């Protein structure tokens, strides 16, 4: 009787042991698979970048590539107009998106009453962040190009990309404003500051780092964005530069460049990539490597800044 009991419990223990063994094996197996997946993702990023650099190497190391206009011959084609175009478009994007985005975020965090009207604005911001970028291109085509008659100009492209990154700037600014404790505001009010002064001299000042992070990430997104700029009708073959924004003779500033037609880096890359000849693919790879390098650098700076801010500022 008791022998049987012992035998059956021994059997139970054995089965429990195999069960534990299996569970532990599964645990290790999943650990390996997980690690494999993570490595796979990281390696993909590396391969993507290396592939572009290796394919584009002949042009990346060729100085003329940066100072030549596009050409029908792949070896003589260069990036100059795209580099200038991208810089000017980014200037317009920065000037249009940053003040409006930061202003909107300040309003939503500091001023907005809690009612249906604010709710509508918030839902809109969330929705805009999820709208596909090409839809912004269609908006710009209908609104800026034909209704406002800006044409396919640097101004149109800059404003389009500005609208595109607006939600990014708004969300980042709101987050960093929210991190500032109420005590800071109360202290400012206590010495007689008005709301405008509290916001301008304290809230915005202390959240500047977080706002800058959002702006950098937004600008990085705008530099690499292709679809909306194609939709507004950017040209791919630009063999001239827009008028310089700054001159040595009065009035020193001119705004004719705003209405100039243009091309940007990703569009130049797209047009080279769409050609069947593999000589142009070298150019495309070189352009791609430059775009990736710029966006990765900007993102890396922003991410690093965010981590530093989180570490450094302890309000209590």
């Amino acid at each position, binding site marked *: 009787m008791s022998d049987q009991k012992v035998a059956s419990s021994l059997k139970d223990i054995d089965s429990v042991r195999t069960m534990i063994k299996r*569970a*532990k094996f*599964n645990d290790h197996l*999943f*650990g390996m*698979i*997980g*690690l494999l*997946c*993570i490595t796979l*993702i990281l390696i*993909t*990023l590396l391969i*993507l970048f290396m*592939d*572009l650099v290796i*394919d584009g190497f002949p042009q990346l190391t060729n100085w003329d590539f940066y100072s030549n206009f596009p050409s029908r011959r792949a070896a003589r084609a260069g990036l100059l107009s795209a580099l200038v175009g991208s810089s000017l478009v980014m200037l317009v994007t920065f000037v249009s998106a940053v*003040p*409006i*985005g930061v*202003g*909107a975020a300040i*309003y*939503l965090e500091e*001023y*907005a009453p809690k009612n249906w009207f604010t709710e509508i*604005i918030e839902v*809109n911001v969330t929705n*805009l962040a*999820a*709208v*596909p*970028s*090409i*839809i912004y291109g*269609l*908006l710009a*085509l209908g609104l800026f190009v*034909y209704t406002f008659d800006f044409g396919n100009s640097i101004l149109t492209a800059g404003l389009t990309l500005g609208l595109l990154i607006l939600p990014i700037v708004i969300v980042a600014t709101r987050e960093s404003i929210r991190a500032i404790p109420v005590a800071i505001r109360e202290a400012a009010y206590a010495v007689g500051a*008005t*709301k*405008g002064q509290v916001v301008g001299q304290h809230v915005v000042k202390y959240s500047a780092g977080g706002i800058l992070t959002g702006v950098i990430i937004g600008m*990085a997104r705008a530099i*690499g964005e*292709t*679809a909306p700029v194609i*939709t507004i009708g950017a040209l791919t073959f630009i063999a001239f530069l827009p008028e310089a924004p700054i001159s040595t003779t009065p009035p020193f500033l001119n705004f004719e460049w705003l209405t100039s037609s243009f091309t940007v880096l*990703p569009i130049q*890359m*797209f047009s080279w*990539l*769409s050609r069947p000849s593999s000589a142009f*693919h070298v150019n495309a790879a070189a352009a*791609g490597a430059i*775009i*990736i390098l710029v*966006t990765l650098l900007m*993102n*890396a700076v922003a*991410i690093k800044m965010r981590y530093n801010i989180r570490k450094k500022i302890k309000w209590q």
Partner: protein
Amino acid sequence: MNTATTVLKSTQGTTISPRLAKNFRRNIKERLIEILLMLCALSAVFTTVAIVAILVYESFAFFEFVSIVDFLTDNQWTPLFEDAHYGIMPLVSGTLTISFVALAFAVPVGTIAAIYLSEFASHKTRETVKPILELLAGVPTIAFGYFALLLVTPLLQMVFPELPTFNMLGPGIVIGIMVVPYIASVSEDAMRAVPMSMREGSYAMGATRFQTAMRVVTPAAISGIIAAYILAISRAIGETMVVAIAAGQQPNLTFNPMDSAATITAYIVQVAMGDLPHGSIGYQSIFAAGLVLMLMTLFFNVLGHFTRKKFREAY
């Protein structure tokens, strides 16, 4: 004491009206700041209204020319040909097929990566990998297009020799790679939000990390995980450059990923690259296609939003 009384006296001595005037100016300034900031915030509403207005207005002109029944049932999309057909289905089928391939790749990889990061990885690994995932999410899509056309498709052709240069499989996988970081980071956030006490309960019963992850953490975080999948679908549908470069631009009513096909986004790019006159039917057709795209992504965004809200478990 003495100084205090002198101050009081001096304030009483001065007339009160300049102070009121200063207050008045200050109040006006404060109001102006508030109104200006509100206008900034309203720009988001204006943008949405403008998007809807433009899409609907141009599509309206399109649907005066093409009947909605044709638009939805015709199985050819050739607005730029002599023999024009306006059936959106080939574009929708291409869009859905590519999104399906992308999700088939991204869901397993993204979920496993999320579970690993949230439940298995050491603090140090997590803090290193998460920023890199954010970096991957910031890579411009045009670079992924190059990757799809000149690296992934040739590799796939080694496995499937009959695969054409332009196909839906390669770009689908590449879009999958693109949305993996998104799925991983959103799902990981959802899993990290599951309270530690639930894990501790599971471990106390003798469960392994894998058992805890599969039977406790994942079910508790499922609403967030599914929302991540749905939002990833919406991203895959709206993705433009990868498909415009690597999927070919022939509208093709097929669900076979080995074929070449065009998506809604690729069609818009194709038309925009050409030189269509403003107001022509081809010009209006991209707005009709854009409206369909907008409705599709809106559907998935709203679905994702409600999944996250409705099935969120409160702890």
